[in-house]
């Protein structure tokens, strides 16, 4: 079964870049994109994903609100937050809301590769 990844970011550039990075590691990955947290939650309701890459600073539902909704729903979806907001308190808050990891922007290929490998290994 190919890996299924949901990429949530309000900029096309980052969604494309992350999609290219993921596919450079696992070319068969099925990527779904969402522009904000609400779209992401709608996609999660329809499809089972192996991983979500989630931005924080977005319109409608931001990343924190999206994580809160997932936590309330007792979701087991692995979430990696990828954000320009690299304040220590932002990192702590995302991890306390259930994110498995945090990456600052711009994304690092090596770290993303390690994360994808750990998801596949499970």
């Amino acid at each position: 079964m190919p890996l299924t990844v949901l990429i949530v970011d309000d900029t096309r550039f980052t969604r494309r870049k992350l999609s290219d990075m993921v596919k450079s590691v696992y070319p068969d990955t099925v990527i779904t994109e969402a522009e904000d947290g609400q779209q992401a939650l709608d996609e999660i309701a329809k499809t089972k994903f192996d991983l979500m890459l989630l931005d924080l600073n977005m319109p409608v539902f931001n990343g924190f609100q999206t994580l809160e909704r997932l936590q309330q729903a007792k979701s087991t979806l692995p979430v990696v937050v990828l954000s320009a907001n690299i304040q220590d308190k932002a990192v702590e808050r995302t991890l306390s809301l259930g994110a498995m990891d945090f990456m600052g922007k711009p994304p690092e290929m090596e770290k993303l590769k390690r994360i994808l490998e750990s998801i596949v290994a499970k």
Partner: protein
Amino acid sequence: MSDTCFDEDELDLLKELSNIAMGRAGRDLAKVLDEYIELSIPELRFVSSDMVMATIAEMMGGLEQSMSVVRVGFHDSLGGEAIFLFGDETWHTVAELLADDEPENEASERKLLLDISNILAAACLNGLAENLKGSVVLSSAPTISQRTPASLVLDTLFSASRSQWTKTLLVKISFTMESRDFKCDLLLFFSEQSLEGLQKRLRDILNE
């Protein structure tokens, strides 16, 4: 008049690079103040010189309120001006967070606001220039107007330079605190002359 016209992909990329630069600025300010800084989503607009005041007023939700305004010029690969608009009570919050023992007067307010502007301008502009594979030099003499209606300060500022440009790009970024009286809006104006170079750098990144 510049005929530079950015397409959607270029503006989308510049928004993301501004977001990354703002994130670094937020981190640096949060370290200094030991307080979490709320970051806005960057807003980008092209503005003509005759519409600049109306555009800023719309983006700021009005300009009649009293503010302190700091202006920092920048040049090199990117050129333009960074204009910081601080809410009147912001400096009290900063002084409190820094446990500043200085007496509360115009001079200490001025010093604190210039310090905050320098931290944000350095992180934001260096971060943006670095992500665009360029460099930037900040002017060594920022100017400040304290507790004045923002419309008055900005009108004076732009009336002096309005004849020198016709269209430019404006990026608005806001830094706030959830539980304290801290508000700083940053308006980044790229000079008309630097738009072509900026667009070329954006295209190069998109084509990588």
